[in-house]
């Protein structure tokens, strides 16, 4: 008899997907293909089964419309980017794989610094740290996306007195070859001529990105020639509207206006480009560009947007410091420049655009390297885990929950304090009230 595997994504799965949704979508595809005996359910805030490539064998659950609990109760293995707190009691009977594909301590520290001030900042950090630690404490296996992240999660687990398998499951590339269905930029978009050279910034602009260096480089180039254009694809992340339309993105917009680039050299695609339309843009571009600040978030990151660029065979110009930038330099897949150096960036852009043979060499190198990044290969540790692991025959020892208890208390306390401080409704009290209301109805003989 097949086992039930539940994949929980915090991001939508459908035409509009960002990294968490894309990862969950391909995970469902690969698991459905490689584990034909098992029942796979993909749960996300919204799931659109009409999205091309959605596997027929996978059941979809939109948890903004339907309850998640029954599906979680039925599951034998739960794979979640973050397990919702209300499902924690279930881990005594289930196996949990936590898919931490970023170094969330560093990433959320960056978010905390940008989003909060004073005491709120401190509380927000304590809450986020406890939440990540809670996930680590609950997991039976932790997935991450590069060796740097793996070492840091092993260190975090060791300091919590835990030893658990931590495996690297890189973000993969799409299985089908990229196909251009229609012209979207060159000769179509006002301001971009068919002979122009287009640079793509594919993905949002969160606080740790550095679009200003890119804009300054474009300004330098625009003074010499007018055929280099840049397109920012995507602003607001699907179902996380506050992410993307932040300080950094607004300052980029402002800088583009101030430098006189807006609408002439630099173009912004507001909103989010549908997943199946992304190739139309990528295949019209000469190169992909992404610049970011150099800090711990960058050092540990895996820029998932680069995977689409590899898939489309586009050379990449990026900032040095992260795992993929090292790979890009080492394997000749593009050019990595020092952080915050717009002059070096401008030179790199011109070098790449003017040297056709260099671009063609890079494309060949990408062709060679991208073989390693198929989802089937990158998710092999997960497939092996799901295939070989023995399921708990009866509810596991209470110790599973006890080791997570301090972190759960820590998380709920700091969250409640933060909510009170901001004058928001306290989530814990809301849940308690809800349970009490249901109990009251039950006692009165009504159906819940």
């Amino acid at each position, binding site marked *: 008899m097949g086992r039930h595997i539940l994949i929980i994504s915090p991001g939508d799965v459908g035409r509009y997907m960002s990294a968490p949704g894309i990862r969950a979508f391909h995970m469902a595809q690969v698991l459905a293909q490689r584990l034909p005996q098992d029942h796979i359910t993909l749960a996300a805030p919204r799931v659109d089964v009409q999205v091309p490539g959605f596997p027929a064998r996978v059941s979809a659950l939109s948890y903004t419309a339907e309850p998640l609990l029954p599906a979680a109760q039925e599951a034998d293995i739960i794979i979640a980017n973050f397990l919702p707190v209300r499902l924690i009691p279930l881990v005594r009977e289930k196996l949990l794989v936590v898919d931490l594909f970023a170094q969330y301590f560093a990433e959320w*520290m960056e978010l905390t610094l940008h989003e909060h001030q004073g005491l709120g900042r401190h509380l927000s950090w304590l809450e986020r740290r406890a939440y990540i630690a809670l996930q680590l404490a609950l997991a039976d296996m932790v997935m991450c996306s590069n060796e740097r992240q793996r070492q840091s999660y*092993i260190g*975090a687990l060791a300091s919590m007195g835990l030893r658990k398998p931590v495996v690297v499951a890189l973000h993969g590339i799409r299985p089908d070859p990229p196909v251009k269905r229609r012209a979207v930029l060159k000769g179509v978009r006002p301001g971009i001529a068919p002979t122009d050279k287009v640079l793509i910034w594919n993905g949002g602009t969160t606080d740790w990105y550095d679009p200003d260096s890119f804009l300054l480089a474009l300004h330098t180039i625009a003074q010499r020639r007018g055929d280099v254009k840049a397109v920012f694809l995507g602003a607001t992340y699907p179902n996380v509207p506050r992410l993307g339309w932040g300080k950094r993105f607004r300052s980029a917009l402002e800088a583009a206006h101030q430098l006189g680039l807006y609408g002439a050299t630099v173009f912004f695609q507001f909103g989010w480009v549908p997943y199946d339309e992304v190739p139309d843009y990528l295949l019209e571009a000469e190169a992909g560009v992404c610049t970011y600040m150099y*800090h711990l978030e960058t050092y540990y990151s895996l820029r998932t947007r680069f995977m689409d660029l590899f898939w489309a065979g586009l050379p990449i110009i990026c900032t040095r410091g992260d795992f993929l930038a090292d790979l890009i330099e080492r394997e000749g897949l593009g050019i990595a420049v020092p952080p915050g150096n717009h002059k070096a960036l401008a030179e790199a852009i011109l070098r790449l655009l003017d040297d056709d043979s260099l671009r063609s060499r890079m494309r060949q190198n990408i062709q060679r390297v991208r073989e390693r990044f198929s989802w089937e290969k990158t998710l092999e540790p997960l497939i092996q885990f799901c295939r070989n692991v023995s399921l708990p025959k009866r509810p596991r020892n209470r110790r599973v929950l006890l080791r997570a208890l301090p972190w759960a208390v820590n998380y709920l306390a700091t969250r409640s304090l933060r909510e009170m401080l901001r004058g928001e409704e306290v989530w814990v009290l809301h849940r308690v009230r809800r349970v009490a209301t249901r109990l009251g109805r039950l006692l009165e003989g009504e159906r819940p």
Partner: protein
Amino acid sequence: MRVVLFVGPWWGLEGDRAGWAKALTSELMAYAQVEIGRDGKDVLGKVVISPALNLRLALGARRTVLDTRLWEPGWLTDASRDRRAWRDLQLCLAHHVLCRGPGERDYIIGALFALGLITPQLYRRDPLLASYVLTAEEGPSALQGSLRGPSPWQWRHRLPLLLRKGALALLISGHQR
């Protein structure tokens, strides 16, 4: 420049570990007065310096550099409760941590995050933690630069954790006795 103390019982060490300690100490001697814990009994033959001495030195406004290369192999990753308690305490008391290479640095940064030793204040000042967690590959010159700069952390941020970890370490040690 205040006195720098290297935490580590290197006079009880042999081979590579003793070599590292001596080389680093002599390099640092060139620019700062290096003082070795006077209470030799507290450190001789132990993997870590006694917390009491460590605390006394740290409270005395001295910077402590924890050189994890001096630890026995496997000590860093040992998940047993007593080892972990002492290790956490050592990490809590260190102003700077010096480790073997990038892999070990990643490991230590993960541990520091989980322990709560990396605060928004600390991260804001040093977003790469370049002056807090250093690798031996960067050499003593990197450490010298870090020691000249402001201390990576302040007591008020670390005191609650230190009290908790200190009490835990003492309890475990008392229980074992």
